[in-house]
């Protein structure tokens, strides 16, 4: 158990800056999920903490000690790789025992720890197998076991579930969460999957083009996204964005399509006429006789709910999520409840809060 602090961590490959100064503090035992689109720098961030890449600038303080200049071997960090990276020429037992042998533990101690970890993960009967004789899920478990057995100060997960099929992914996701809680090891988890991000993390760090855009609990990120990027990235189907202007003395937004929506939570700063972007999640849109007309292009029934994808009068796409079935609809009229509106500045894309 250890705390992790990143101070102004930067990384450039040649002239290309990949990370522009990341600051972050992880409490002992906390699970932080780093999420972002591919190329946002999330894997680089993880590899910097692991010691597999050398930072251009900044400090990595693990348990009060700056580990940035240290070799990975000296950091006491374990990592679970996307492709598992098991040692193909070793048995499951040897895969897990490898790091312990390097640390010079006694044979009896190694056997005990590997045995305990194998029991924890349900690998007892597979200890003599080679990685190629295992299924994807079993390999995933061995990779977890190899990390757990060392009892490291910090766990790093690099998209560990992305090579599994959908069903197994859900099972393993729950298992990782259960194990991490039980062992209370400080963890960094990188993923591009927003469901993993929402369900796994105590907190979420959203990265966009090498910058930390938002760091908050998953629900806070969902309910109060810091900017249009985060708003569009978290939540499925994505949030709808509509251009608008500030009006009525800052108490309402007038959509470019004409609809006026008052703010439920107070006045926004700025002159009337300030350009805004109004965000509304598909599940919050409601039908209303006096609302905007939507031409439905596509109906996606998901069983318990249905996603309708349509076009507004100006051609912009709008997705609407409704409960139950919705078939044979060609158009509908919708409005946006004031309590569920997200207000962003059109120029910066940043969230505008009342005040």
């Amino acid at each position, binding site marked *: 158990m250890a705390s992790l602090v990143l101070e102004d961590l930067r990384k450039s490959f040649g002239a290309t800056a990949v990370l522009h100064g990341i600051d972050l503090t992880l409490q002992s035992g906390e699970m932080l999920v780093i999420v972002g689109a591919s190329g946002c720098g999330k894997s680089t961030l993880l590899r910097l903490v*692991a*010691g*597999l890449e050398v930072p251009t600038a900044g400090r990595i303080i693990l348990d009060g000690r700056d580990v940035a200049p240290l*070799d*990975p*071997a000296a950091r006491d*960090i*374990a*990592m679970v*790789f*996307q*492709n598992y*990276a*098991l*040692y*193909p*020429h070793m048995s499951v037992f040897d895969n897990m025992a*490898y*790091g312990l042998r*390097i*640390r010079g533990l006694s044979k009896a101690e190694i056997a005990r720890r590997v045995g305990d970890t194998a029991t924890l993960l349900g690998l007892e009967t597979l200890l003599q197998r080679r990685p190629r004789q295992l299924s994807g899920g079993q390999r995933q478990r061995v990779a977890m076991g*190899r990390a757990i057995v*060392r009892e490291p100060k910090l766990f790093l997960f690099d998209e560990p579930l992305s090579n599994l099929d959908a069903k197994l992914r859900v099972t393993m996701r729950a298992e990782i969460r259960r194990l991490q809680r039980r062992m209370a090891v400080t963890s960094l988890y990188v993923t591009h999957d927003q469901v993993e991000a929402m369900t796994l993390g105590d907190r979420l760090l959203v990265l966009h083009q090498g910058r930390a855009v938002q760091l908050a609990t998953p629900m806070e990120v969902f309910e109060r996204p810091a900017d249009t990027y985060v708003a569009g990235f978290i939540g499925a189907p994505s949030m709808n964005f509509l251009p608008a202007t500030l009006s009525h003395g800052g108490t309402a937004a007038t959509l470019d399509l004409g609809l006026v929506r008052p703010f439920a939570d107070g006045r926004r700063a700025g002159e009337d006429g300030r350009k805004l972007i109004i965000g509304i999640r598909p599940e919050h849109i409601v039908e209303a006789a006096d609302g905007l007309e939507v031409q439905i292009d596509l109906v996606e029934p998901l069983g318990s709910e249905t996603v309708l994808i349509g076009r507004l009068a100006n051609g912009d796409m709008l997705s609407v999520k409704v409960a139950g079935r919705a078939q044979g609809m060609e158009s509908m009229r919708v409005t946006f409840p004031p309590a569920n509106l997200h207000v962003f500045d059109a120029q910066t894309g940043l969230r505008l809060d009342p005040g």
Partner: protein
Amino acid sequence: MERRTIFPGWTLPALLLLPQLVISFIFFYWPAAQAIWSSLTREDPFGLSAQFVGLENFADLFADPLYVATIWRTLFFCAAVAALSLGIALLLASFADREIRARGFYRTMLIWPYAIASAMAAVLWILLLHPQIGMLGRALVRAGLNWDYQLNGAQALLMVIIASAWKQISYNFIFLLAGLQSIPKTVIEAARMDGAKGFHRFRTIILPLLMPTVYFLVVVNLVYAAFDAFGTIWALTQGGPGKSTETLVVKVYRDGVVNLDLGSSAAQSVVLMAGVILLTALQFRFLGKKTTS
């Protein structure tokens, strides 16, 4: 995954196989059959008549202590060449596998010696190691060493081993570099995270994963040293001084082409051929096992 193509008749497959079969027949089966026939006969010195003598040539060979000594010398020579060239190639490949500046340049430079003809390589080593005109040779003499490979058998053997190994390093280098590059980077990174450093990581992770390539190269190197090194040896020492650098192939050439004892030379060729077949069979069995386990 196995892919089979089913041909409708037998003419097309037969035609496709024909060129390879013709080449194999003309350049391998025919001479091999002739060698086997010659090994069972004895010719008069003028090549006018041949007399069938059964296995007498073989019996004579193995009764000859000089021939048995040549076998041991050849085994030593092959083992030394394979070990030296593989060892150095592995070292160079490990260095060239790193992220370094001008990597492509180093790799090209390391591959060049392979394109040099055996005789040229031999001349190069003579110019280096000759006690009077060689740069290194003269330095050795000046250092007080009694260096003269033309008189000292052990020194001559050392020289042909070095020269033969040097020519094979490039070949081994290419294969070992490819082998190193096919090891997944993340496996090595996982080992780094597990705390494995430098040589320990090399010995426990990289080398085991490289073993299939190494096994293959050991066989190729043994065959190279046993046969292809002939050019280098002949150009450097002609098997001398005395018989100190005479390997089996050199002896086949000397007895057959120089001394015109065709029967014995053919019998030696057959023994060599059996050796190669054995090596190849071993390789197939070993590699076959390696890939399925």
